[in-house]
């Protein structure tokens, strides 16, 4: 509560003193300056109705000032904004603006204004939530020193009083007293009655607070005399309250009552809420001391109302206690007395038992403590075990991950070797195809020519010659078929045109082509997923691969069997084709070589050994995956997983 009082006092006195220093900023002929001054003035008038409106006016002034590079007015705007923000409770903003003003005044060598800003910054540190009393002291001291150097003793003394408030707040009341006295002397030098009165009142207040009521009374009465001389009623209110407190301390209750009541009525007249609160508080104590319970209660009620507005909860609680206490006071006292007697008797009786109970309790507590320690140990060990298990699990997981990585690495290595093989084969075949096709070409040309010769000239053993020619033709056909197949290796990836395909349709087309070789031997079962009705791939390549897979499945079946062809989306939503046969299957060593060029298990002449190698190469080009699962005598499953381009864009 005293802080609030100090705060009020500082604002009051501060405004009285510091206004003089601003007087130099007289309106100038310059129109922009007048505009700024106008904004500032409007802000000032709005300040009483709340800082927000004032801030907006000050901000406009600030903008104008910064546009016109008028440093001094700019600093003034900053200072005003600082004050307004301070009132709005934005202490850090206030600090910021005052510091800005301070810097400018420093640069412009406006020492008195600089000292003023120092003082204001000190006040922010003192009163705000920032609550840095040491910093407050630093700034007040700096301000004081500056004012004193300039010979401006009135504001210097004011700053001394401010410093004293800080010391008082810090609990260093003797120090506060000494500084208030120094302030009084400073004011006395320039015969500043207002400052002298304030200092005396503060000295009185401080003396009251340290219990030196006699000295306090002396100072307060002097202050009161001065204030009456000055006809300053506002200042009289706290001084009168101080006198009341001094008399209360000296137990001169009638005088105390007189001065305090005077303080209250003056505060009421002037509508000084804080002062009313203060005086009423003092009066409650005085009435209480006088034994005037009902008056004390009424005063407390008044005080409570005031407090509600000031949100002082301590006094409110006291009032409530009073309210309840007054009606039941006597009854309670009687009851308390009875209870006390009964308690005393009971205590004597129970003291022996109590001791036993205490002893037992101590043992029990010790036992509990022991249990707690043991159980804690158990818990710790359990936790350690859990942690160990967790670590072990982690290790196992890591081990597993490493194993996976290793097998992946091996697989990658195998794939690398394979693709290297395919790549070198690709470049090889491009050149080889041309070189083989040329000799094939002139063999072919020779056959054509020979046919003509044979037709023209009637030769003996005509039939035999025709057969020989047919065999030569077959040789050319097979050789050129191999070369044609090989040339697919040299195809570049970007030759593939990717289109949207219905996988079921593609497979059905393949079956149509293979029909003649399948129909007497295999039963074909199909299970096509509707989810694979639009996949993105290259039709020719896909066709080539699927034909190969189905043909291989058919070749694996010796006499009769079943080929099951299914499509589905795998875990990663990749469209996948599975061709499953119940044929002879493959042992692991065969399975490992199926993609090698020219590797075949078929009878000589039955296969080129290029089917799966080419399929493999095409698969790579499609960025698809091709793999087999096989078991001898049971059958083989061939899988072709396409990339999920629909989802990957």
């Amino acid at each position: 509560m005293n802080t609030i009082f100090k705060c009020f006092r500082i604002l009051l006195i501060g405004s009285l003193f510091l206004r003089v220093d601003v007087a130099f900023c007289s309106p100038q002929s310059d129109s922009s300056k007048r505009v700024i001054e106008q904004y500032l003035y409007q802000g000032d008038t709005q300040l009483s109705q709340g800082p927000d409106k004032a801030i907006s006016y000050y901000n406009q002034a600030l903008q104008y000032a910064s546009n016109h590079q008028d440093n001094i007015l700019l600093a003034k705007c900053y200072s005003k904004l600082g004050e307004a923000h301070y009132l709005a409770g934005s202490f850090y903003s206030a600090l910021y603006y005052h510091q800005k003003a301070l810097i400018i005044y420093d640069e412009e060598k406006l020492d008195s204004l600089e000292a003023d800003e120092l003082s204001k910054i000190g006040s922010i540190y003192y009163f705000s939530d920032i609550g840095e009393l040491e910093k407050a002291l630093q700034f007040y001291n700096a301000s004081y020193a500056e004012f004193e150097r300039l010979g401006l003793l009135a504001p210097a003394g004011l700053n001394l009083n401010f410093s004293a408030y800080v010391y008082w707040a810090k609990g260093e009341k003797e120090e506060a007293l000494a500084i208030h006295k120094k302030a009084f002397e400073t004011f006395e030098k320039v015969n500043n009655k207002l400052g002298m009165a304030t200092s005396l009142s503060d000295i009185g207040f401080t003396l009251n607070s340290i219990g030196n009521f006699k000295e306090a009374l002396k100072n307060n009465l002097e202050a009161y005399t001065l204030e009456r001389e000055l006809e300053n009623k506002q200042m009289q209110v706290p001084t009168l309250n101080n006198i009341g407190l001094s008399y209360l301390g000296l137990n001169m209750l009638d005088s105390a009552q007189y001065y305090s009541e005077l303080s209250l009525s003056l505060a009421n007249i002037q509508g000084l809420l804080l002062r009313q609160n203060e005086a009423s508080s003092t009066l409650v104590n005085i009435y209480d001391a006088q034994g005037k319970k009902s008056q004390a209660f009424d005063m407390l009620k008044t005080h409570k109302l005031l407090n509600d507005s000031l949100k002082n909860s301590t006094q409110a609680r006291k009032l409530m206690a009073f309210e309840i206490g007054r009606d039941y006071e006597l009854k309670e006292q009687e009851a308390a007395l009875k209870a006390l007697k009964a308690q005393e008797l009971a205590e004597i009786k129970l003291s022996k038992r109590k001791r036993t109970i205490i002893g037992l309790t101590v043992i029990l507590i010790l036992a509990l403590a022991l249990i707690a320690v043991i159980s804690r140990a158990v818990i710790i060990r359990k936790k350690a075990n859990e942690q160990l298990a967790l670590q072990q699990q982690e290790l196992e997981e890591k081990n597993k991950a490493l194993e996976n990585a290793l097998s992946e690495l091996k697989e990658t290595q195998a794939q690398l070797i394979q693709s290297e093989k395919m790549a070198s084969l690709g470049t090889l075949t491009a050149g080889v195809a041309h070189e083989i096709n040329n000799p094939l070409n002139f063999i072919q040309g020779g056959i054509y020519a020979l046919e003509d010769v044979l037709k023209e000239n009637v030769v003996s053993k005509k039939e035999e010659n025709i057969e020989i020619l047919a065999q030569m033709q077959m040789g050319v056909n097979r050789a050129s078929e191999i070369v044609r197949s090989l040339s697919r290796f040299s195809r570049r990836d970007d030759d593939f045109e990717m289109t949207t395909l219905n996988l079921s349709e593609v497979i059905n087309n393949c079956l149509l082509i293979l029909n003649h070789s399948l129909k007497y031997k295999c039963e074909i079962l199909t299970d096509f997923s509707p989810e694979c009705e639009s996949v993105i791939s290259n039709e020719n390549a896909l066709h080539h691969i699927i034909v190969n897979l189905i043909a291989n499945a058919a070749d694996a079946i010796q006499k009769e069997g079943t080929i099951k062809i299914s499509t589905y989306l795998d875990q990663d939503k990749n469209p996948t084709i599975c061709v499953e046969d119940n044929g002879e299957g493959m042992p692991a060593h065969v399975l490992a070589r199926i993609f090698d060029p020219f590797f075949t298990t078929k009878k000589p002449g039955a296969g080129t050994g290029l089917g799966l190698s080419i399929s493999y190469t095409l698969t790579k080009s499609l960025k698809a995956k091709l793999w087999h699962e096989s078991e001898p005598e049971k059958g083989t499953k061939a899988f072709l997983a396409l990339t999920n381009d629909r989802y990957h864009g």
Partner: protein
Amino acid sequence: MVESKKIILYVDDEQINLRVFQLMFKNQFHIITALSAAEAVEKLEEHPSINFVISDYRMPEINGFEFIRNVQPTYKEKNFFMLSGFDQPEEVNKAIELGMIKKYFTKPMNKVEILSALEN
């Protein structure tokens, strides 16, 4: 009657191919051969009555495609073909689209295919 046969200029860097081609089509066409693009240019100047030009793709110095590209604008009335052991190269596709080359045959050659193309 010999005069009524249409004339083919066949260009290939292998003598044996030239000879076989001659034997194959000697009944249907009159065949003039050239072992290089340079020789083919001379033959074109010597025999203005040539109807068809069939060239290999891969040849030393000037390849078949460059040869056709160079001479085709001068001999627009003649039909140009290619016969090669390679899969049809990309640049030939464009030449076919532009009408510079009528058709691309692959080796080993197919007599029926060539005959039907030339007769159209």
